[in-house]
């Protein structure tokens, strides 16, 4: 595990998403992202959680992992699901997600679905 990694596991319940948003802001601020970008990422995590919670298994957990590799920040959000499926790419939520996070990748395995958001810091002086 890289040193520049933060991971948080919370109950798969929308009331815990605020915790992930706050952590996102903290991590992005550490990387010197601008306020615009911080807010975008915060919204993106919100949106990703919203998408995943729709298919999350009740009583399961939501995992959120932040990987910092200057000037990139990647965020994995994983939910456990009984029949995991990729979120529709033609939906509004996906449009929102891609405009907020820049690069969005979705993947499924037998019992979970993961959204990976990647954003490069721009504009800010190194």
């Amino acid at each position, binding site marked *: 595990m890289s040193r520049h990694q933060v991971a948080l596991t919370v109950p798969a319940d929308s009331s815990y998403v605020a915790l992930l948003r*706050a952590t996102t*802001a*903290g991590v992005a*601020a550490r990387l*010197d*992202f*601008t*306020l*615009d*970008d*911080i*807010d*975008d990422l*915060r*919204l993106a995590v*919100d*949106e990703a959680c*919203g998408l995943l919670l*729709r298919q999350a298994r009740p009583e399961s957990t939501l995992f959120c992992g932040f990987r910092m590799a200057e000037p990139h920040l990647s965020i994995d959000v994983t939910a456990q699901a009984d029949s995991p499926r990729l979120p*529709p790419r*033609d*939906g*509004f*939520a996906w*449009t*929102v997600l891609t*405009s907020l996070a820049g690069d969005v990748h979705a993947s499924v395995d037998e019992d979970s679905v993961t959204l990976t958001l990647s954003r490069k810091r721009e*504009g*800010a002086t190194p």
Partner: protein
Amino acid sequence: MSTADISSQRHPAPDLEGTGTPVDTGFESADPRARTVQLFEQLAGSDDVEKQEALRNEIVRLHLPLVDHLARRFRNRGEPLDDLVQVGTIGLIKSVDRFELTRGVEFSTYATPTVIGEIKRYFRDKGWAVRVPRRLQELRLSLASASADLTQELGRSPTVGELAERLELNQDAVLEGLESANAYNTLSLDAPDNGESERQTMVESLAADDEALEGVEYRESLKPLLTALAPREKLILMLRFFHGMTQSQIAQEVGISQMHVSRILSRTLAQLRTSLLDH
């Protein structure tokens, strides 16, 4: 306030007409005070409803600079000046309805506390949705203004580090302030469209924006939801997601703070998410 402070009310009326008046109304026209008295006299002597309306309107118009002047005192407190002028004008209208010439007080002197009271009430009512300590409220306000300044200077939105340096705070304090900003509620999603000219143009621009939604599978589920949004929410959503504008750019375009844009986006998306789920 001590009883001595209200002693001025015992002064004869002419004294208040003079230079001792505490409020600089910013009037430039010939003699608005005399005109005001004249109008109120006509108003008191008129039985014609239409005539009364016209007189009231003229008195209100005559004192709009006063409202503007008073509203400016509350600038930089996180609310758009336009909104403050608007609620201040409500205070002005109330004053016109309650004012009596026979009291011998000048109208602007009489109206000032009512206008200020209305603006203060607006801050109280539309202010913090959650009780937030004063320290954080003040922090949020200084963050908002520092953030706007830095955005101007840098040509992009600032980093937390830059904000911390400008405000001579540590980064944790800045982050805390940004988090607390989420508890601040200025605009309800259900807020009615007040039909201001500015919003009117927004609504017009939205028709064209619908084309930007092409390619998104939205017709069945999303369109009615977007239509249900208040014009400002919809506009901000469109600018961010279909025109690729940054939050700071939107803030400038719409005339509100970036933090406000962020809050509106976050709330609007949450609302859409809930509605889509219910569908």
